[in-house]
């Protein structure tokens, strides 16, 4: 930020050699004459309780006039000790904990922890369960991106996309409620299967959603993408090059917006994602505008995956039929002695895992969500580590925000798409 000096001078009654009035220069810019007069830095708190911090994040911002000199983020204001609680829970009891970490994409978190537990125990899930889990992950991606779209557009001044986005979210909430009984805290998966099979009305409603959802996306696209204010506020703001993105271990839309084509669904496929036909949007210059375009395009792609998943939904059991892992149905448990014993052992002692450890990373809407279980043979994990994509993406905000205006800092903070439940765990 260069200090600009303004040369002002005042004509005095005297005359110089050429007879012109003698001009006496006035030190116009105080900063040159007396740096102390230039104004010290102002320290403000974009504190835990702030409409633009998307949760209880706290940014201590050092300002010079309007320009951000430095941003010091403080997190931990929603630290709820999930990993400590995980060590006191059976594997199936950990699933309800996971909806509360990233509460914008609850089903995707349930699938993540179930995949890690099944990888630890070496369980192969049924094809119908695989497709249903893909449906769950893609629905979570849509509602998470819709919340991001709504709140970011509010931050930058556009209120209507928030209402459009939340109207579509309510439709997915209805589907989630139909499937699991809860709008938000779904606790969908169990080790080796799912909570319940989808009701028939679910398939028709989801089909109808996939047909009408792109219209709302087109409206949001038409309102925002070529909107002069939106473009002006987001283009080449908070730029991260591909090299910096990799060095800061970013993941998900943040990484892809900087031009690194890494998507867990394509590069380390799970749940049969390699058999689906979808493409991964990759940005060029890694600014806030590219992250918006990447996330908007991802909504379209998720919609395509949902349509394909509905076409190929095989019928058959949703749970693997291994009585040590999945509760026997109530009818058999009450009549058949062996089933009752399995039922009793599972409820009282939980599902035992072999000694060892397993890490399973999935493509969560925020980035690569990893669940790392270490087990010593008992039914409760020794260590449950959540690899938090939002936490790691947020760490780069001080690098992105230097030198920008304060209003750009709000746009950058919104573009990181943080959810504090996952950042603080």
């Amino acid at each position, binding site marked *: 930020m260069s200090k600009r000096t303004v040369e002002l001078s005042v004509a005095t009654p005297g005359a110089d050699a050429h007879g012109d009035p003698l001009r006496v220069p006035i030190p116009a810019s105080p900063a040159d004459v007396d740096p102390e007069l230039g104004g010290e830095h102002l320290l403000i708190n974009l504190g835990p309780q702030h409409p633009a911090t998307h949760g209880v994040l706290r940014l201590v911002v050092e300002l010079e006039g309007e320009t951000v000199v430095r941003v010091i983020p403080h997190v931990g204001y929603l630290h709820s000790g999930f990993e400590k609680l995980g060590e006191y829970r059976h594997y199936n009891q950990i699933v309800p904990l996971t909806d509360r970490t990233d509460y914008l994409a609850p089903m995707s978190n349930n699938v993540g922890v179930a995949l890690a537990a099944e990888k630890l125990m070496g369980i192969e899930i049924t094809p119908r369960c695989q497709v249903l889990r893909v449906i769950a992950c893609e629905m979570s991606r849509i509602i998470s991106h819709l919340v991001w779209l709504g709140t970011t557009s509010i931050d930058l001044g556009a209120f209507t996309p928030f209402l459009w986005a939340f109207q579509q979210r309510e439709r997915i909430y209805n589907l989630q409620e139909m499937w699991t009984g809860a709008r938000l805290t779904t606790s969908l998966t169990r080790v080796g299967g799912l909570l319940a099979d989808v009701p028939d009305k679910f398939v028709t409603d989801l089909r109808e959603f996939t047909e009408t959802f792109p219209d709302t996306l087109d409206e949001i696209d038409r309102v925002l993408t070529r909107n002069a204010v939106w473009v002006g506020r987001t283009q080449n703001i908070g730029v991260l090059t591909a090299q910096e993105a990799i060095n800061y271990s970013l993941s998900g839309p943040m990484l892809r917006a900087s031009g690194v084509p890494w998507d867990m669904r394509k590069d380390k496929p799970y749940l049969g994602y390699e058999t689906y036909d979808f493409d991964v949007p990759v940005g060029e210059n890694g600014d806030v505008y590219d992250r918006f375009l990447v996330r908007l395009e991802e909504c379209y792609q998720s919609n395509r995956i949902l349509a394909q998943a509905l076409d190929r939904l095989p019928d058959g059991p949703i749970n693997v039929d291994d009585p040590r892992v999945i509760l026997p149905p109530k009818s058999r448990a009450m009549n058949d002695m062996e089933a009752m014993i399995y039922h009793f052992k599972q409820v009282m002692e939980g599902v035992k895992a072999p000694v060892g450890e397993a890490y399973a990373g999935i493509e969560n809407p925020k980035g690569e969500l990893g669940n790392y279980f270490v087990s010593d043979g008992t039914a409760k994990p020794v260590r449950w580590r959540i690899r938090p994509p939002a936490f790691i993406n947020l760490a780069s905000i001080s690098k992105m925000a230097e030198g920008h205006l304060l209003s750009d800092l709000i746009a950058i903070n919104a573009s990181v798409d943080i959810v*504090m439940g996952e950042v603080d765990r």
Partner: protein
Amino acid sequence: MKHLETVKGSDNWLTTKFTALVNWAVNQSRANSLWPMPFGTACCAIEFMATAASRFDLARFGMERQAFSPRQSDVLICAGRLPFKLAPVIRRIYDQMPQPKWVISMGACASTGGIFDNYAMVQGIDTVVPVDVYVPGCPPRPEGLLYGILMLHKKIKGEDLFDPSLRTEHLLNDKGLRLPPEQIDEISEPFGNSVHQFRSA
């Protein structure tokens, strides 16, 4: 006008009717234009946003204007769990709200610490700030929160304007707590399933 007839046992017909009228008028206007201070921390905040959005529409209850600063808000809605690191923040914001002010504790985690009976979580925000209405649920459905708000309306309409004890400012006592320590320990006792949280093996 149902509320007016319930005034009983008052000494003098004329004055009681007058105070009842003033009470009715002021409380009615207060209840129907509560500006919420959404102290949204966790999952309940998303459900609060869904309540404020177009389907469940908080605007029907005069709560259209969400005030994000304590200076212009009447009811502090603690939507979501409250870790210990956030306790001084909610205490400071509650103190900085002008009277008359109320607090709705939305969700099981705010009301009792919920499933987080561990080192990081305040076991119920009533150990930090006085709470008027507890809304159960994890998260409470938007209808649940709206019912909680209606109960707060009923409470406000029953308040007496001329009773100073309702509106006095209670700061932290000399020990730096809101309640005596033994009462806080008693409130934060583990109950239900979390009593069975044995060793971690």
